[in-house]
Structures are given as C-alpha cells and as structure tokens.
C-alpha cells in the first residue's frame, strides 16, 4: 500500500514542485522540504515539523497557555463554547473540536511508563483525584499539537495523508523532548505545558506535554 503512494509523492514533488509541495509557501521550511523532496511524505513532514518546532510551535503553545485550573473552572461554570472562544484554538469549520494550550502543576497519582502509550495521571487541584492525563508516548493519541497551530492549514497540504504525517511528526517531537527521572514517579510533582483537544465538556483531559519537569 505504502509503496503505491511513494511514487506518487515523488512524482508530484519532482514534476510539480508548486502544486505538490504547497507547503513551501509557509516561511522558513523551504530549505528542509527541498532537501527532503523526493523522499516520503513521512520524511518531508518530519523535516518540516523539525523546522517549525522551536521557532513556531513552542511559542504558540507558550503564548496561548492558560493555567489548567483556570481553564477547567471556565469550562465547568460557563461551558465549553465560551471557554473555547476565550482561550481555545481550532481550525475553521463545523464540528472542529476546540484545542487548548495549558500549563499546570500537580502530584502524580498514577504512572504508566511501561506501555507504548505511556501516561502520567496528575492531580492539579489537590483533591486527591487525577484531573489530567499527560500523554508521554511514543503512542500519542490525537492531533492536538497540529490542530492548535493557527499557521497550519489543511488547504495548504496536498491531502490528508501528508497532513496526518505532520501531526504524527509533531507528536514524535513532543515525545522525544521528554525525559523522565528513574524510579517510581507516583507522589512526585509534575509541572507541564502542552496542548489538548476537548470535544465535550465532561471528557477526560489528555494533554500532550511540550514541556515537562518531574521532581
């Protein structure tokens, strides 16, 4: 299957640099995408993600980050839509869920670091129960990192495949940026900054950390 798409990608990049690699319209990634052109979607998107990570992605997260306790209170009292309008980030279009950038600190209630989908459950409001799940990966659910970026627009990408590879590459970078101390993490304090998607008011918060310190 994948083999079938590779020649297409190569063709569209080699013969139609303008149409096939629209992404070069964005500032900056030109060098990386040109260098990686002719390779797979995966490689091109990984190169692009690397280019934008420190200069564009992390600043957007920091700039929009709201204290998680404040955000949860707003959602609880006013609802998801007002909270989204005040703090959220999402692409245009019906049925697109809100994404939020948030910071927080709390006690690790539960840690699953053995799984491929490693997670920390953190209590940020000192009620003894976890209220946020930090997704450590390498299996990271969702596309929150990509969808929270106002400068990443689906129309600028060739198709869903390329756009999906970008989401995966950003998740991989988030995963790669995390280092955890050895030993049992339960009871330690985690401070974090990251993004999550919230589809419904009562849904569990599964945040993808872009910064995480455990002590």
């Amino acid at each position, binding site marked *: 299957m994948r083999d079938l798409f590779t020649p297409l990608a190569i063709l569209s990049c080699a013969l139609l640099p303008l149409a096939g690699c*629209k992404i070069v319209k964005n500032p900056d990634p030109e060098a990386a995408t040109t260098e990686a052109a002719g390779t797979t979607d995966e490689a091109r998107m990984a190169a692009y993600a690397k280019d934008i990570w420190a200069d564009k992605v992390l600043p957007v997260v920091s700039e929009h980050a709201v204290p998680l306790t404040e955000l949860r209170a707003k959602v609880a009292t006013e609802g998801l839509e007002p909270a989204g309008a005040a703090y959220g980030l999402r692409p*245009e*279009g019906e049925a697109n869920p809100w994404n939020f950038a948030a910071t927080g600190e709390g006690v690790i209630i539960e840690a699953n670091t053995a799984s491929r989908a490693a997670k920390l459950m953190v209590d940020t409001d000192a009620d003894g129960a976890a209220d946020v799940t930090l997704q450590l990966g*390498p299996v990271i659910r969702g*596309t929150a990192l990509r969808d929270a970026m106002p400068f990443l627009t*689906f129309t600028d990408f060739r198709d*869903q495949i390329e756009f999906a590879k970008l989401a995966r590459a950003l998740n991989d970078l988030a995963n790669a940026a995390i280092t955890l101390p050895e030993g049992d993490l339960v009871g330690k304090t985690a401070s974090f900054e990251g993004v999550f998607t919230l589809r419904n008011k009562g849904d569990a918060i599964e945040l993808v950390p872009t910064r995480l310190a455990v002590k």
Partner: protein
Amino acid sequence: MKLTRRHFMSGVAVAAVLPLARPVFAADKGLIAIITPSHDNPFFKAEAVGAEARAKELGFETLIMVHDDDPNKQSELFDTAIARGAKAIVLDNAGADATVAAVQRAKDAGIPAFLIDREIKESGIAVSQIVSNNYQGAQLGAEEFVRLMGEAGNYVELVGREADTNAGIRSSGYHDIIDQYPDMVMVAQQSANWSQTEGYEKMETILQANPDIKGVICGNDTMAMGAWAALEAAGRTDVIVVGFDGSNDVRDSILAGGIKATVLQPAYRQAQIAVEQADQYLSSGSTGQDEKQLMDCVLINGDNASKLETFALTA
C-alpha cells in the same frame, strides 16, 4: 458560439427538469447536481439523500447521478451537469487524480464544485472539500482493535480502492497505532476495493492460507460485512472484525454480537453542509470557510451502536 450553446442547453435543462420538481417544491434557485459513487453502498446513498433533502429545503432542484467509481463515467456526468446548467455540483469523486480535470472543466464553465468524503490532489479548483477526519477516525478504530485483540496476535488488513486517498489515509492511521505494538502481527494486507463481494472472496482465500488469525481490520464497512460473512461461513465467529463508516448493516451486526466496532463518518451531515456552503457561495460569493475542512469521526461499538441511524448518532 459558446454563449449560444449554453443558452440553448440551459433551455433544454429547464424544460427537462422543471416538470419533475415544480409540483412539490417551490424550487427557484436552480439546479444542484449531486454526484456520488453507486448507491449500492448505503454510505453513498446517505450522502445523496442528505444532500438532496437539504437542497430542496433551500429551494434548489436536484439531479442525482452515480459514477460507479469510473472516472470516465464521472466525466460524462460532469458534461451532463454543465449541459443542464447546474448552478453547483456536490461531488463524492471517482479518484483523487482523475477528478481534477473534471472539476476544473466545471469551474471553467462557471459551475462551482463542493466535494465531500474524498479529496482531490489539488486545491484552488473546488470551492469546498469537506472530508471526514479519516486519520483521526482510523486511529480510533485501531485503538479499539488493539484493545479487543489484547495488544497481541495475527491480523489481516483489508484495504480500500487504491486510487482513493481515503484508502491510504485509513491504512496509515491504522498502522500509526497498530505498528507501535510489537506483538500485533499483520499476516496479510490486500485491497478488496471497498466491495462486499471482494471482501468475502479475499477473506475466504486469506483464511485458507492463514487459519491462525485473530482479527481483521477493514478500510470500510462493506468490506467488513463481506469479511464477516466469510468468517461466519467458515465457522470462525471468534475472529475480531472492525470496520469504518458507521453503516446500519454494521450497527446491526455489532448489536447481534458479530462485528465488534466501526467508526462513524458523519456522511449525512457532511452532504448537507456541502449544500449549505453551495447555497451561501451562490448568494454571497464565499462560503466563509477554508476550502479544505475536516469533520471528526466517532467510534461505534456495543456501547453506542443502538444510537446510530443512517450515518448519524441520535442524542
């Protein structure tokens, strides 16, 4: 010359279409052509029905046509739509590459196209491309599949039609999850071209060569129905089957303890949104949206299958 012909043809179109639509609806906004793959797949039928219902509510006449996933036939249908003076075309297309020229031809004739379900490989030609978030949906399906499989075992993947971007994106979404689990082993991966019959045949053959399979993940529901029928015929109802689409057929199978899960694409609503955007574009010159728009999918399993009806979840 060109003008004369268009006037003549639109006269023909009015004569041909009005007697059918006038008595029931006060349709005065003109004609919307709704072109999809064959209605044999209830997914595409739901699109056509959803688009038609909304179009009539908004005061359009409709012309429903099917291209049977044949780009040549689709091209002829575009000629028909152009000849009959359609104001807009709502399209679920017959191939990401092959469709570009047809949509461009409609655009050159002044007819905007609003694409649903499947993308084309170019932007800037269609006015809207509203597609399900297949990657997100596939990841939901894959997570459920991995969970049902207990994170281990041999499995088969039935892939959709290769010319269709959705076949690739769903497969990619499945593997971005499944491949992270080293004990999940794919023993066969074949295309069954979205077809129930082919799903049945491919499953039969694969099962003979690989009797030790524990699960089958499919790129759509019709292939899942075919695979399930083959597994049932072989007495292998222990095999975990997961589909994609959210059809009533798979819903019924889930409720009867057959297929385990699927992923709902909001096909009915998606088709309606396309018509709404067409209406807005025709009256104001803009949809107010980006060209390419994603709509999230929802996991369907035993917990919520009873709420599913014609590609929509009831509250």
